[in-house]
C-alpha cells in the first residue's frame, strides 16, 4: 500500500486533501461541542417527545445525501431567511463556500457523533450519577467528573466516526459546495473528477489514501472499545 502511495504521490491532489482534512477536523470538533449537550439530553431526558428528536438526529443515516444537500443548499441560498440574513451580514451567500460545506457536513455527520455519545452516557450506572448528586455535585460537575470519564470510549468513537464520515462524504459536498478547487473540492470529488476524466491511476492513489485513513481511524475506534473496561483511574 505504501509503495503504491509513494509511487503515485505526485498524482494526489494535495490541495483537495488538505482541504478535506481541514473540513473534517473543523466538523468533528464542532460536532464534539454540539453533540455533547444533544447526546446528554437524548440520554437523560424524560420528555415525551424525545423520540422525535432521536428520529431527527438519525435522519442523515437513511436520507440520500442529495436530499439533505438540496435542503441545506436552499436554506443557505438567498431565498431563505437564513441565507438572506447571512448575505445582509457579509455581502455574499454561504452556498458554494467552505463554511457552507462545514454547515452541511455538521448536519450530515450529526448522528455519527450523537449516537455513540448518547449510548455511552446512558450506559453509565445511574446509581453513580445519583451518588454524585447526593455528594453535592451539580449536573455540570457530575457530567465532567463521572459521566464523561466513564464514557471515554464512546466519546472517541463519536469523534472518530464523525471525522471519518466527513472525510469521505460526497453527495452533500457536491450539492452544497459544488466543485471549486481550493474552496470546496474535496478528495472524494477529486476522485470522481479523475474517473470522469479517465485518470484511473490518479483516482486510485487518492482512493487508497482515503481508504488507509478511514481504516486506521476505525481500527483506533474498535481498539479503544475493546479496552473499554480497562480504564485506569484518572491521576
Amino acid at each position, binding site marked *: 500500500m505504501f509503495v503504491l502511495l509513494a509511487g503515485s504521490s505526485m498524482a494526489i491532489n494535495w490541495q483537495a486533501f488538505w482541504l478535506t482534512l481541514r473540513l473534517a477536523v473543523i466538523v468533528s470538533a464542532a460536532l464534539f461541542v454540539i453533540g455533547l449537550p444533544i447526546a446528554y439530553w437524548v440520554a437523560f431526558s424524560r420528555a415525551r417527545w424525545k423520540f422525535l428528536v432521536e428520529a431527527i438526529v438519525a435522519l442523515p443515516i437513511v436520507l440520500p445525501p442529495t436530499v439533505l444537500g438540496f435542503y441545506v443548499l436552499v436554506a443557505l441560498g438567498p431565498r431563505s431567511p437564513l441565507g438572506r440574513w447571512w448575505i445582509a451580514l457579509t455581502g455574499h451567500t454561504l452556498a458554494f463556500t467552505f463554511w457552507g460545506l462545514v454547515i452541511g457536513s455538521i448536519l450530515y455527520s450529526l448522528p455519527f457523533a450523537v449516537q455513540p455519545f448518547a449510548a455511552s452516557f446512558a450506559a453509565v450506572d445511574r446509581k453513580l450519577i*445519583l451518588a454524585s*448528586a*447526593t*455528594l*453535592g*455535585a451539580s449536573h455540570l*460537575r457530575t457530567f465532567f*467528573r463521572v459521566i464523561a*470519564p466513564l464514557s471515554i470510549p464512546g466519546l472517541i468513537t463519536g469523534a472518530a466516526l464523525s471525522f471519518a464520515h466527513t472525510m469521505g462524504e460526497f453527495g452533500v459536498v457536491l450539492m452544497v459546495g459544488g466543485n471549486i478547487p481550493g474552496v470546496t473540492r474535496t478528495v472524494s470529488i477529486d476522485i470522481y473528477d479523475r474517473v470522469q476524466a479517465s485518470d484511473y491511476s490518479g483516482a486510485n492513489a487518492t482512493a487508497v489514501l482515503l481508504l488507509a485513513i478511514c481504516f486506521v481511524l476505525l481500527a483506533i475506534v474498535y481498539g479503544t472499545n475493546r479496552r473499554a473496561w480497562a480504564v485506569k*483511574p484518572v491521576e
Partner: protein
Amino acid sequence: MKSAMSETEIHHTAARVVSEPDLTAIHSSCPDSPDAQRRGSRLEARIRKQLGEFVLDVGFRAACGFTIVFGPSGSGKTTLLDCVAGLVRPDKGRIQVGECVFYDSSSHTDMPVAKRRVGHVFQSLALFPHLTVEQNVGYGLARFPRATCDARVGSMLRDFRIAHLAVRSARDISGGESQRVALARSLVTDPALLLLDEPLSALDAPTKSKIIDDLREWNRMHCIPILYVTHSREEVFALGDRVIVLDRGRILAQGTPHEVMTAPLQETVAQLAGFENIFEATVESAHPSQGSMTCRIGNSDAVFLETPLMRADVGSSVRIGIRAGDILLATSLPQGLSARNVIPARVRSLEQRDVIVSCVVQCGAEGHREPGKNMLEMEVHLTLAARDSLQLAPGREVWLVIKTHSCHLMRG
C-alpha cells in the same frame, strides 16, 4: 404510633441533653450552617407517595443514632429513603432535618438533592470506578480548598481504617473495603443525616460488626440520625436503638427492637419478626396471683395454653404467637418440668431446610380428634441431630413442651 413516639423521646433523652445548646442556636440554618449546629438535629418526616398501585404513607421521627427501617422487600423501604434524599419527589408531606426543610408540599419547598447534603450509601455502594479510594472519599469536598480537603479525607480514611488503600482504584478493593470507602465518602461532607440502604447485607457477620463499631464511634462525636434499611431480623436486634416496621407502604409499629420484635402487637409484625405459629385464642381464665392466664386455641376444645397475664377479660379473643424454635419435642410424657404447657401431638411431616428440620405436628389428644375436622397444627424447629436421636417420622406420637413466656400475646 403516638405512644411509640413519646417512647422514642424518652429513649433519646441522653442524646438530646448533649445537643440542647446547639438546637437553640439553630435559626434558619440549612446546609451551609457551621457543623456544630447540625449536630443532634432530628429527622421529622411525613411522606405520601403513590407509585402505580403502591402507596407509601408514613410519618416518623428519627433522633441521633441508628433507626432501623425493617420490612420485607417491596414494603417501600427504598422509596422512603429516596424521598428523604430527594431522589424521588413525594406527592405530599414534609421532610425536615433540624431546622432545615427539605420538602414541604404546603409551601412548595423541594430542596435539590445536591443541596440537601444527606449522606446516602446505596445498596450497590456506587463507588466511582474510575477514581481512586482517596478521590472517591474526597468527591463531596470540591467546594473546599485543597488543603482542607486533603486533611479531611486523610482523617476520614484513618477513622475507617482504609488509609492504606488511598491510591488504589475503587474497583480493585474487596467488598468490606468498598463498604468502608462508601461510608467514608458519605460522611466526609459532615451530613446532617445518614441513609444506609442495606449496605452491609452482603458481608459476613464479623466484618459487618467491625464496620458498625467504627460507624458508631464516628457518630459518638457527630450524633446524627442514621436510617438503616434492612430486611434481616438479626440486624434489627444487633444495631437498632429503634426500629420502624414497614409493610406495604405503611408503618406497622415503631419502638425499641425489643418492644417491637419480641412482643409484637400486630400479627403482620409477628410474621415479620419470625413467629411461625400464630393462633386465634380465647381467654379461658385468669390467674392474677400467678401472673398467668389460660387460653383456649381456636374452636377446638382440646388445646389449652398457659400464657403470661394480659389485661383482657375472660372470654375475650386474643392472638398468640409462638416461635417454632421455642417449642420442645418429647417422645414420652415428660415429668418434673417448669414449663407449664405439655401438649400431646402427632408428627405430620418433616422437612429439612438447610441445617434446621421443620416439623409440623397436629395437636390434641387422640380421643378428642373428630374425623374430618381441621386439627390445630404447629411448626416446630429441630436440629438434624435431635430428629435422628428421637427417630422422628410422620405418625409418631410426641409431646410439645412450651414455656408460658414463649407464648406471646398480641392484640386481635
